[in-house]
């Protein structure tokens, strides 16, 4: 088997090097070198492991067009889990070195402590981590996610996983909070709608992911969320409030219909808790006559506000389906917001 060297440059300037066989993905080869990259589906389906090939030849394995478009692939954007080297490869990653683990995370168990319907198709799920000898603390960074195993009918045994962003902040009580959109035929949705009950025991993996806050002085932070893409934003905003971060913040929160809005009380509470100020801009795409707020997508609202912005361009955080992310990226580029101020995490139905 032919091996090639992969040089990976992280967002904060660290260079990592490891060998990669031609039939190994970059993610697999990194793991073989005890470098666990922030990935989600590992199947080319979610787009969470976006990176850029700076030089070198490679082959892209099968992947979803929504996760990596033809146009992006033509610009040498890659998915780390679907990239196979054909020569020495230099890559740049959109996450910091600290997001790469040097040992695999052991699975833990957690118990369902709350399951509440909070929107037309959204459930709040709270789990409590068990103390399995290593303490019960929930240690993660705002914006990260966990993978939850779907219990089988017997309550355990199945190994299919779904990744969901955490909506709360790190805590010492072991609480994990998720905002989960219910999808027809979704396996975890079926569990949540049919069988889930307080006291259920789940296996969880994490925390994972590199979609976290960037500390850039007092530059404003603008968040754009589509549907349950709100979860990591809520986590980040709550962490900002907890740490009393001084950056001005605003959130564009988009849903299809007004009745799908959720977590408005929690978001409202942030106004008083964030020292730099907080603006909540709910956006409804298919609004009825009673809706008095922004009509359209959050990307539309963002574009309008960027057009009249004076002063420093904000850091933009966006989480939602690929179309939303593409629209936000375009709006940011049209306004001249530098690429390094745009931080995104995309999710696709069935994978989140």
């Amino acid at each position, binding site marked *: 088997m032919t091996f090639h060297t992969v040089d990976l440059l992280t967002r904060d300037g660290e260079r990592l090097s490891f060998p990669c066989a031609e039939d190994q993905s970059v993610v697999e080869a990194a793991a073989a070198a005890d470098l666990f990259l922030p990935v989600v589906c590992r199947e080319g389906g979610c787009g969470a492991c976006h990176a850029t090939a700076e030089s070198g030849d490679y082959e892209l394995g099968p992947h979803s067009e929504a996760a990596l478009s033809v146009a992006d692939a033509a610009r040498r954007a890659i998915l780390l889990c679907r990239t196979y080297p054909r020569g020495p490869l230099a890559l740049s990653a959109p996450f910091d*070195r600290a997001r790469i683990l040097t040992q695999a995370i052991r699975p833990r168990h957690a118990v369902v402590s709350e399951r509440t319907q909070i929107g037309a198709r959204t459930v709040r799920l709270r789990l409590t981590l068990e*103390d399995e000898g*290593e303490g019960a*603390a929930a240690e993660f960074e705002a914006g990260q996610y966990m993978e939850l195993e779907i219990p089988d009918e017997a309550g355990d045994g199945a190994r299919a996983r779904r990744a969901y962003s955490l909506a709360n902040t790190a805590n*010492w009580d072991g609480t994990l909070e998720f905002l989960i959109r219910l999808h027809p035929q979704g396996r975890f949705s079926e569990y949540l709608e049919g069988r889930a009950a307080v006291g259920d025991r789940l296996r969880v993996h994490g925390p994972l992911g590199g979609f976290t806050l960037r*500390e850039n*002085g*007092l530059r404003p932070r603008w968040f754009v969320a589509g549907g349950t893409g709100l979860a990591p934003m809520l986590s980040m905003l709550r962490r900002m409030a907890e740490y009393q971060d001084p950056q001005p913040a605003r959130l564009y929160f988009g849903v299809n219909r007004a009745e799908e809005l959720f977590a408005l009380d929690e978001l409202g509470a942030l106004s008083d808790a964030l020292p730099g100020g907080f603006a909540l801009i709910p956006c409804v795409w298919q609004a009825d006559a009673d809706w008095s707020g922004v009509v359209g997508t959050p990307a539309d609202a963002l574009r309008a506000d960027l057009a009249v912005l004076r*002063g420093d361009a904000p850091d933009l955080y966006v989480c939602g389906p690929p179309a939303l992310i593409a629209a936000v990226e375009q709006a940011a580029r049209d306004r001249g917001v530098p690429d390094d101020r745009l931080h995104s995490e995309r999710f696709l139905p069935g994978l989140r």
Partner: protein
Amino acid sequence: MFCYQCEQTTRLPTGDGCASAKGLCGKDATTADLQDLLVHAVKGIAQQARRARALGVPDNDAGAFMLHALFTTLTNVNFNPTRFVTLLHEAAAVRDRVAARCEAALAANPDVAQNIPNATGPAIEWTPAADLTGLLAQAAIVPVNADLARVGADIVGLRALILYGMKGVAAYANHAAVLGCTRDAVFAGVEETMAYLASDPTDMAELLDRALSVGRLNLQVMEMLDAANTGRFGTPHPTAVRVTPVAGKAILVSGHDLGDLEALLKQTAGTDINVYTHGEMLPAHGYPTLKAYPHLVGNYGGAWQDQQTDFANFPGPILMTSNCIIEPGPRYRQRIFTTGPVGWPGVRHLTDHAFAPLIAAANALPGFKADEAEQTVTVGFGGDAVLGVAGAVVDAVKAGDIRHFFLIGGCDGAAAGRNYYSDFATGAPDDTVVLTLGCAKYRFNRHEFGSIGGIPRLLDIGQCNDSYSAIRIASALAEAFGCGVNDLPLSLVVSWFEQKAAAVLLTLLALGIRNIRLGPTLPAFLTPTLLAVLVERFGIQPITTAPDDIAAALNRAA
């Protein structure tokens, strides 16, 4: 960014200094540039504060702000750009407040004005830009090497030597200030020196004199810090410190701030939580007031550069009280807390000894499950402890039982060449005594040195903060032998890493101490010309190999 303030700075044939997107310490260019701008802002405060003092309205609150602000700019202290943006705005407000005091004093007594010049210059005129882009544009014109093309590397290097020495002075003075110990003379010295730097001086002889005056100022500060520590916590006594864990919930305290440690010990008294020291906090165990807490159970881990491993393996939360922090790894990023001048982006910062989150973390985390076999090291040979046996020491020297003393002190670090210091300590002949302070000791403090006539061959004087004790010991020995310090059978082997060590080095030079061995490499800001001056005036020498340097020291003494 351009930064060459620490020992590990980038060294290239094309020129020394970190000048890329990220320094070797892990500091990004934005943070480094904002720190340069904060130093500029502090110069402006110093100019106004010096004027206020001359007008009879000194503002020691401004002085305290300067100490804290400069402390945040030391290597491995604060990496959080957000914090620096806030500090910059605070700095401008402090400067303007002091300026207003000056104006009020002048209005009350206009005749005084004739003798006291106005404060002028860029640091007085500066106002912080409204946004980050603007601040970085301002920072671009005030780096430490801004004047290089005009004045040359020697002048820039001397200014840097003074600035970095002042950063060390500020750090030590801040340690004393948080224990409630300040002195007008120290504030005046800080104001005077930083205002001098604001004048962009170019006279080499004057700059050299100023560098030595920084050393003298630091001697005052070290004495003040010694008084603050011993006044609050008692006189250190030789104490065996456990360096293996005991079962139970656990908190690890690193850095230098003994006041933070004491506050945490009070807040955890009567709980099931054990407190461990790490790194430069090890000497805390020698202080009577601190070791009286039974749950201060031991020391965990090694010197600062081992923290990413030590902290990841520690089964409880960590409190970092001062330098030296390096990037927290993902395994402990959520359970490390900073306080005081320290900061890291995304790491929770605690103020005013509000340690409840730290204690909650300790209760949630597993702690140590079992005792490990007990091992100890001995600390607490501060000035009084050694001077208490000075008679025996002098007798041992006169009897020929002790041939020589080596003071091996300073910082540890990750560079491979630092094994010189362990080779030196363990290779010192059996009829010699090794005194040590700072964190370099971790390279050899578990070695079995034995004793000479009941006097341990390894005497741990304390933190780098305890340099005053070493100076007292040397001075007392010189007095006992009726000679100067340079005539004692004593060699100083200094391991430097950052700016506290720069301040101590200037103090040693100001005291006229010669023939110091300095390593593992020489400061990048010392040009060949400056080094030649230091060699000529003070006999400073770079380290070579441990056996050769031991032999040279013993030959010189003979």
